[in-house]
């Protein structure tokens, strides 16, 4: 009989978003992951774990009043109730691999496959799923942008990959060298963490997040041109273990905000590069190497103004 039953809600997962493991396991009806599957640092996961523990306690104390269907099992327990052929590995849930069933009862901390994936993901550049051209500059989706033209991309397991955006790499031009911090070095958001060199001149690059460097892209030391060729993939700078990620991300540009920021920066760049005449133009994407078009003194002035470094 139509209209009598419970209305089945549409559980649409927006493009680019992923289901929380609690939703994936069927414990909650709808929840998207907002912590890049870094469950140990996830506030929601902690709250749910606590809620399930309390529910279990109340069931023991007053079994009649307890609600048998509500939060009586964690997502791991729910997953383990499924037949073995349906227990997706977390890297399958996150889309990192095509098909893989959990071989270790969701104890990722002791899983050798998890360790292998962690190492592989850290050493390999992450592919950009989509990007758009904003005012002639490439803005990659899913990246957070700092006003100093660096990007931060939270990855699975709570790490953050950082690098230089397309605007900065065009402005700086062909790099002759990169200065990297050592592993274990502590970075502060908005403070110089890296350095770039070109034609004997250098400029500081601000870190987009607070954290400790756990890995650097050592290929850049011999091949700094990778930053020019592929700023969002091969040209990443470092992987950071963040210390204040949630707070840091609030201070970065994301999505539409990043597009507006890039557009405004292009206008500012055009205006500063032509401040002798105060001109405005219609049309035109940026040349690949803006620095080639600038005089040396102008280069330093513009690089410092846009990278916001001292």
């Amino acid at each position: 009989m139509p209209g009598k039953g419970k209305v089945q809600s549409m559980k649409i997962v927006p493009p680019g978003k992923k289901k929380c493991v609690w939703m994936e396991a069927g414990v909650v009806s709808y929840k998207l992951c907002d912590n890049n599957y870094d469950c140990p640092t996830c506030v929601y996961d902690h709250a749910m774990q606590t809620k399930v523990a309390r529910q279990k306690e109340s069931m023991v104390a007053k079994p009649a009043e307890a609600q048998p269907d509500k939060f009586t099992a964690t997502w791991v327990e729910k997953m383990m109730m499924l037949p073995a052929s349906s227990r997706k590995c977390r890297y399958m849930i996150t889309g990192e691999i095509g098909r893989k069933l959990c071989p270790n009862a969701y104890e990722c901390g002791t899983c050798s496959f998890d360790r292998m994936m962690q190492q592989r993901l850290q050493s390999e550049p992450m592919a950009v799923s989509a990007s758009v051209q904003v005012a002639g500059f490439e803005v990659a989706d899913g990246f957070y942008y700092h006003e100093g033209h660096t990007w931060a991309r939270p990855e699975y397991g709570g790490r953050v990959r950082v690098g230089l955006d397309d605007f900065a790499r065009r402005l700086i031009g062909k790099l002759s060298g990169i200065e990297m911090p050592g592993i274990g070095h502590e970075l502060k958001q908005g403070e110089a963490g890296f350095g770039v060199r070109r034609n004997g001149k250098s400029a500081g690059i601000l870190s987009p997040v607070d954290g400790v460097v756990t890995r650097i892209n050592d290929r850049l030391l011999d091949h700094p041109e990778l930053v020019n060729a592929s700023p969002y993939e091969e040209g990443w700078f470092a992987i950071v273990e963040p210390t204040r990620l949630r707070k840091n991300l609030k201070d970065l540009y994301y999505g539409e905000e990043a597009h507006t920021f890039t557009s405004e920066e292009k206008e500012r760049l055009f205006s500063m590069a032509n401040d002798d005449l105060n001109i405005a133009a219609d049309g035109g994407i940026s040349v690949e190497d803006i620095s080639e078009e600038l005089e040396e003194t102008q280069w330093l002035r513009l690089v410092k103004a846009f990278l916001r470094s001292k």
Partner: protein
Amino acid sequence: MESQRGRPALFRSLAVCGLGAMDSTVIRHVAEHISTRSCMPYTIIPEMDIPAYAFDEKRGQYNSKVILKRLMQFPHDCIRLLAVTQVDLFVPILKYVFGLAQVGGPCALISTYRLRPEFYGHDPDRDLFMARIGKTAMHELGHSLGLTHCRNRRCVMYSSTRINDTDLKRSDFCPTCFELFRWHLEKCRVEPNLYVPQN
């Protein structure tokens, strides 16, 4: 210059001229287009030489900033001077421009080179070509009167990065830019002055 004050607004017009050999129908279209939308009379100035002085051999294009500086040396008694050329223009940090103007300055410049559908491998389309020219001319006229870029994608003052942006926007101003355009134009009407280049 003082003697120009109080001169009837009737004589103040928008001037259009070709740089290098230009199709006269294009020049007339530009003149009529900006004249209709600004309710100002227009004057067509005799063609100037092709701007060979601004050719950049490395890029194979013409430096629009150099041309604009040269145009600013040209004295005129019009509200604004809009030059139209068919050579490919650039400014140093951009690969190309459809047009360029000094914000609040006496001159503006547009190029028809990248406005032709043929440039993008499409069939010739005169109406589309003329529509693009009209939008670019209004955009640069807006700049030269003092308007800056607008965030409204449909407003003619929206900054076109690519030709698709030009096709998407309308040939008119959004209400805010229209108000600004009228305000700036009105200032020019009541404060006429002969433009004499400053050396």
